[in-house]
C-alpha cells in the first residue's frame, strides 16, 4: 500500500491539480459552451425544414450535427489542453516547485497526462450527455449506440492527446504542439486517402511521384487510422439502440492504448533529460 501510494500518489495528486487548473481555462470553457450551444441549437434547425420531406430527415440532421460537433469541439479541446499543460507550467515556473520535490519526471508526466484525460473525459461526458438526453427525449428510446460512440470517441482522443502531449514536452510554447496536434488529427482521419495517394503516385514511375508515394505509404504505416473509431453513419441512419456493427471494440481499445503508450513513451524520452 505504501509502495503503491508512493508511486501513484504523486501522479494522482498532480492529475487532480491539473484537472482543477485546466477546467478553469477560458478557451476551453468557450469551446465547451459553443459545442453545447450547437448541440442544443440543432433541435431548432429541424423546424426550418420542408414539412413534406422525408419524415426522419430532421432527426438525421440533428444526429449528424451533434456527432460532428462532439468530434470537432472534442478534438479542439483535446488538442488545446494536451498542447498547453506542460508549456504553461514552464512559463509560470510551477514546474520548478514540482520537479524540485521528490517527484520523478515520469511521475510528473503521468500525473499531467492523467489530468488531461480527466478534462477530456468530463468535457466529452458533458457534450455526449446533453446529446444523449436530447435524443432520448425526442425518440423515447435509450440511445445506447450513442454511448458506444462516446466511448470510442474518447479512445480516438486518447491517441491525439498522447501525441500532442509528446510534442508539447519538447516545446516551450503551446503553438507548435497545437499545430502538431491538429496535423495529427486531420491526417489520421484521412489515412484512407493516403493509401489512395500511394497507389496513384506509383503509377507514373516518375521520381517525385515515387517520392510522394513513399511518403504517403510511410505516413499510412505510422499514423493511426482514426476513421476506425467513427460510427457516425450508423448513429445517423440506424436505430438508437442498435448494437455497433463493423467495429471490433476490444481491438480498437487495444489499438488506441498501444498508440497512446507510444505517444507517452515519446513524451518521456523527450522530457527525461529536458532542461527546464
Amino acid at each position, binding site marked *: 500500500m505504501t509502495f503503491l*501510494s*508512493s508511486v501513484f*500518489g*504523486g501522479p494522482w*495528486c*498532480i492529475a487532480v*491539480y491539473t484537472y*482543477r*487548473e485546466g477546467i*478553469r481555462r477560458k478557451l476551453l470553457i468557450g469551446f465547451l459552451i459553443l459545442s453545447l450551444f450547437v448541440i442544443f441549437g440543432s433541435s431548432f434547425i429541424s423546424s426550418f425544414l420542408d414539412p413534406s420531406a422525408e419524415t426522419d430527415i430532421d432527426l438525421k440532421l440533428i444526429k449528424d450535427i451533434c456527432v460532428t460537433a462532439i468530434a470537432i469541439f472534442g478534438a479542439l479541446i483535446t488538442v488545446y489542453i494536451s498542447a498547453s499543460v506542460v508549456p504553461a507550467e514552464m512559463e*509560470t*515556473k*510551477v514546474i*520548478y*516547485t*514540482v*520537479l*524540485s*520535490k*521528490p*517527484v*520523478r519526471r515520469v511521475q510528473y508526466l503521468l500525473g499531467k497526462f492523467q489530468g488531461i484525460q480527466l478534462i477530456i473525459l468530463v468535457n466529452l461526458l458533458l457534450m455526449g450527455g446533453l446529446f444523449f438526453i436530447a435524443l432520448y427525449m425526442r425518440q423515447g428510446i435509450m440511445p445506447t449506440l450513442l454511448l458506444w460512440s462516446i466511448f470510442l470517441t474518447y479512445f480516438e482522443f486518447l491517441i491525439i492527446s498522447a501525441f500532442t502531449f509528446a510534442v508539447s514536452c519538447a516545446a516551450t510554447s503551446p503553438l507548435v504542439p497545437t499545430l502538431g496536434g491538429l496535423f495529427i488529427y486531420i491526417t489520421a482521419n484521412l489515412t484512407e486517402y493516403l493509401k489512395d495517394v500511394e497507389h496513384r503516385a506509383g503509377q507514373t514511375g516518375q521520381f517525385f511521384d515515387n517520392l510522394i508515394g513513399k511518403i504517403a505509404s510511410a505516413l499510412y504505416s505510422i499514423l493511426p487510422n482514426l476513421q476506425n473509431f467513427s460510427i457516425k453513419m450508423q448513429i445517423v441512419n440506424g436505430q438508437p439502440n442498435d448494437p455497433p456493427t463493423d467495429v471490433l471494440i476490444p481491438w480498437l481499445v487495444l489499438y488506441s492504448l498501444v498508440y497512446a503508450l507510444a505517444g507517452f513513451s515519446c513524451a518521456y524520452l523527450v522530457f527525461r*533529460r529536458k*532542461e*527546464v
Partner: protein
Amino acid sequence: MTTVIRTTALNKIYEGAFRGQDVHALKDLDLDIRQGEIFGYLGPNGSGKTTTIKMLLGLLFPTSGKIEILGSESIDSATVKRNIGYLPEGAYYPDFLRGEEILAYYGKLYGLRGKELKKRVDETIELVGMQHARKRLLRGYSKGMRQRIGLAQALISDPKILILDEPTTGLDPIARKEIRDLLLQLREQGITLLISSHELLEVEMISDRVAILFEGVLQKIGSMAELLTQRELSMTVDHLSESSVSDLTDKGIQVEDRTGNRAVLRLPFHMSSYDGVEMCKAHSLNLLSISPRRETLEELFVRIVSTASKAREVVQ
C-alpha cells in the same frame, strides 16, 4: 562544520544553435555551503546564479563537474529531495486554491498523507504567520502573503536545506523585515539557507557567508568578517573652502554630504588617522569627528564586479 552542499569544478555550457554560439554559463565552480548557515549567493544578472540553483535541484544537468548534497552525489534521489525546499523567483500559485490547499498539494508531493500532512500544514502556516488567511483564496492575497505561502510550500517537508531565489524582491519594507526575521528564525532551527538575491543590504544583514559570481566565475567567497575587513577613515570637517576641495580630491580623498562649509571626507585606505589630522591642520579645517568605516557589501560587490569586468575587457 559539516558541508551540506558541495560543488567541484562544476561547468555548464548552453549549446547554441550553431558552432561558436555556445554560452559557458558556469566555469569550474567550487562551492561549499555549511550546515546551519545563511549563504548569500550574489552576482549580476546572467552571472550563473539561477543556473547553479537549477543544477542543485536537478532541473538542469551539469556539463561537467560534481555536485554533492548532504553527502550524496545522487541529487535526484527522493532522500535528497525530501530534505530540500525551494522557493523560485516569481513563481505562480493558482488563484483558485486556498492557502492551506496549496500547502496540502505540495505536501502530498513529498508523500505526506492524513494526519501527518495536516500537522505539517498547520505547523508551516503558523511558522510563516498565515493562520489568519489559510482558508482564503489566493486571489485575495497580497504579494507579501503570496511570498509567505511560497516560503511555506518550500518548508512543508521540514527540509534541512532551503534554497531561495530572490525571496524579498518586490516586497514592501515591512514584509521584507518579516521575511528576514523568519529566515533568521529558520537558521536558529538549524536549517541551511542558500539565498540568491540582488538585495545586497538584506543579504548583508542576515548572511554568514557570501559568494560573488561574475560571468560564471566565482570571484570571491568568504564570511562577512573576512570579506568586509577593509576599513577606511571617515572624517567630518568644517571650514571647507573650494580650493581645499580640489586639493583634497587630487589626493584621492572623497568629499561627501557637503552642506555649506561642512562635509564628510572619506580617506583612501593608505591614509592613517594621523595623516588625516595633519591634513586638517594643513588646510585649516575644523575636525569635528573621525571614525573608521567598513566597506558595505554593496561596495564590495560593485568593486569586484567592476574589477572583473575591466579584466575581461583587457583580455578581449
